[in-house]
């Protein structure tokens, strides 16, 4: 019996989602009313922006994962990962009196791509996997009194997943393993809400909630590359996958001990346990292709992001940040499809404003998960994983 062994896991899949400025600050910024990324981070902060703004950018990310089997295994296998380039465009227009604001934007809050060798010990679980989710947002924020802002956003997301694994029914004539490839897409509605509180010029705090994406079934095709004798039993078929992407709650603080220095802290809690199963439906079910409901073993996971921004001279800003990203992948459910482990990251960034209406941003980031000894118990597949991720961001703000 064969099922799509899709484990859409979270190691590195959920991105901070903000702009290049936030990327240089460890991804923190939900208590910052600095730029149009508040549309995503905390819509309640939008009315507090000094200027209306259009923010464009992209963050190129490349991850490298390695795996070695249980001792006395000696062979290390590495991924050849594609570069992900989540792009974003945020526009916030705030009222002249800074009483309310409207925003629209697009970003990519979930992204992952991993490519293992075609022949490796885990090939029957995963050879390649990719997930991309693009979100379109419409947001509104309202200032209540002098210090409080509330906001909400509606988002429409389109998610695409592709997955390939080898099938254990022999090799093709050229020696390549049999394989299954599936590609599905779907759309979903989501929502965000935020509260922003700025009692004075130095201190601000925020609480932001993201509903996640409860997709209608992601629908697409499953295709098979199998020996000739098996082909009548593996005809291409339509496949549906029921997969939710999680909700999250973020608490944030920002503090400016002096006018040129700002510190930020974001604590996010992601409800991955709500995505505790994946359902796979084959439109044409056969004895070998069976619908299945797979337990994901996800657990809720925290992340902590801290960042600092320093403006030594008016035209320049320097940034640095650190973050911890907890993995939702439980022991016993660690799959090579999306290697999940707790991650520690460091970031740096800088901005240059040649004129008041223009900001140019650059950010760097590096993350390592450390070594995680993990097993996918159902498949008897275990080993030590490690992932390094590097990110380079470029962005531009137009202030008006």
């Amino acid at each position, binding site marked *: 019996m064969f099922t799509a062994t899709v484990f859409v896991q979270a190691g590195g899949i959920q991105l901070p989602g903000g702009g290049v400025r936030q990327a240089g600050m460890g991804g923190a910024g939900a208590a910052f009313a600095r730029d149009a990324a508040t549309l995503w981070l905390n819509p309640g902060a939008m009315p507090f922006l000094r200027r209306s703004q259009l923010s464009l950018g992209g963050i190129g990310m*490349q991850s*490298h*994962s*390695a*795996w*070695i*089997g249980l*001792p*006395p*295994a*000696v*062979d*290390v296998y*590495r991924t050849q990962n594609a570069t992900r380039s989540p792009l974003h465009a945020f526009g916030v227009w705030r009222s002249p009196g800074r009483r309310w604001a409207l925003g629209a934007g697009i970003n990519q809050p979930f992204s992952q791509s991993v490519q293992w060798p075609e*022949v490796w*010990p*885990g*090939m*029957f*679980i995963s050879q390649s996997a990719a997930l991309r989710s693009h979100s379109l947002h419409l947001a509104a924020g309202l200032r209540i009194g002098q210090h409080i802002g509330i906001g909400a956003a509606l988002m429409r997301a389109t998610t695409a997943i592709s997955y390939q694994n*080898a099938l*254990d*029914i*022999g*090799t093709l004539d050229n020696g390549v393993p049999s394989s299954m490839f599936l590609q599905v897409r779907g759309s979903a509605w989501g929502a965000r809400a935020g509260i922003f509180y700025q009692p004075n010029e130095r201190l601000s705090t925020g609480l932001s909630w993201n509903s996640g994406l409860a997709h209608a079934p992601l629908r697409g095709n499953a295709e098979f590359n199998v*020996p*000739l*004798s*098996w082909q*009548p*039993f593996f005809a291409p078929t339509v496949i549906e996958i029921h997969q939710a992407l999680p909700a999250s709650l973020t608490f944030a603080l920002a503090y400016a001990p002096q006018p040129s220095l700002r510190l930020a802290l974001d604590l996010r809690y992601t409800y991955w346990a709500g995505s505790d199963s994946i359902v796979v439906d084959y439109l044409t079910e*056969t*004895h*070998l292709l069976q619908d299945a409901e797979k337990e994901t073993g996800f657990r809720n996971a925290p992340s902590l992001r801290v960042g600092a921004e320093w403006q030594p001279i008016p035209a*320049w800003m*320097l940034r640095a940040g650190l973050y911890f990203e907890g993995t939702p992948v439980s022991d016993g459910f660690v799959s090579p499809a999306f290697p999940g482990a707790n991650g520690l990251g460091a970031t*740096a960034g*800088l901005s240059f404003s040649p004129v008041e209406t223009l900001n140019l941003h*650059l950010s*760097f980031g*590096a993350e*390592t998960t450390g*070594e995680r000894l993990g097993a*996918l118990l*159902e*498949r*008897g*597949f275990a080993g*030590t994983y*490690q*992932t*390094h991720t*590097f990110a*380079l961001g470029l962005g531009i703000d137009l202030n008006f």
Partner: protein
Amino acid sequence: MKHFYTWFSGLVLASLFYACVPELEPPQMSLGPMRTQRMLAVGSSGVAGVANGLLNADQLPVGGLYAEAQQYAFPMLFARQVGRIIPLEFRSPALPDSGSGYQYIAGLRPAACENRTPLPFLRNRAAKPGWDEPLSNVSGYHNLGIPGLRLRDVERIAASQQNHYFRRFAGSNLTSYTSWMRQQAPTLSLVWLGLEDAMYYAMTGCYNQEEFMTDASRYEAHLEALLAELLQDPEALVLIGNIPDFTRFPFFSTVKPMYSDADCQKHPIYYLNAAGDVAVADEYTHILLPARTQIGTATPYGPLGLSHDAPLPGKLVIDPYEIDWVSSRIEQYNAAILAVAARYNQTRTRVAVVDLAEAFEQIQQGHAEGGIYMDGAYLSGGFFSLDGITCTPRGNAYIANTFLRTAQESWQGVQIPLIDLGFYPGLQYP
């Protein structure tokens, strides 16, 4: 300038980050006290690499050893792992092309019943003419497995003369198997021998008295004699596999007690039991694999096996009493292996017993390892070959891993990487 320096430093840092791929440190490999200068494989069909064999008119295995199968013999796979630590030459006396003949999967078709499961249909590949001609050069080989060899025959010269493989591999100066081993002076031996001493009798339905099971005391005596030759070198070591419960192999356990006809209607199966009476097969009856193609064939008294007047002959069935008898003999063989090993292990472990009985039992329960799944089912399990008694390449890899694990547990310092089972095929399909 200061700003440029900051910018430039950032890019350099970025480049360093980009270069940092994860490094996982593998453990040091080591053979420990195992000396592999002269590593041998000693035994019978399982050692030689027999797979997808055929049956003769007496319902005994023939064929199944051919060039490709020899490459997947478990000692060969064991040697490849050792060869990752030190250069190692390990050669089998090769058979050409189709060797002694074998079965293969010619295609798949949906089963008439049982949810239209794809079922392989099989064809035979004829033996290569001249496959059993004696080799001109019989030295320099390491896999000395002889298909069909029984432990009770290891000291009989006549047995070696009757065995086609022995004649080919050992050359014209035929001697007994034990004497042949005396000439080898191994430093490390992989041994698996004795399965056939009971299994061949069971394969004939406990019917063929000429294949009667070797008694346990004689089994132990011959094993002692054989190991004495393999342990002449005071530093030599042996890994010896014990005997799994072969009554659970697909050859003995695939055919169900109810027969499904072309309309998927089920019918009871009749057979002649050990007492000579006609009995109805039940869940405790072991109908042998050759019966699969014979049940329902026309006889003057009705369809074979489906009529009280045309019961399956005794050679196609083993009833519960016979199974108990055979299982008991397997236990005695395994006790003998332990006893002989203990005599050599007084001061240190020289003979490590590889618990293949437990390893095969894990397969019967269903075994997930390295992302693949195997069980003991015929055709679908991925472990047993088409003859229902020998192993697929993946099954042999599993056996080799069991030997490797035992070496690691028995001798300090042994760190040999295990085989990734997924790299080896189960059954092979066109």
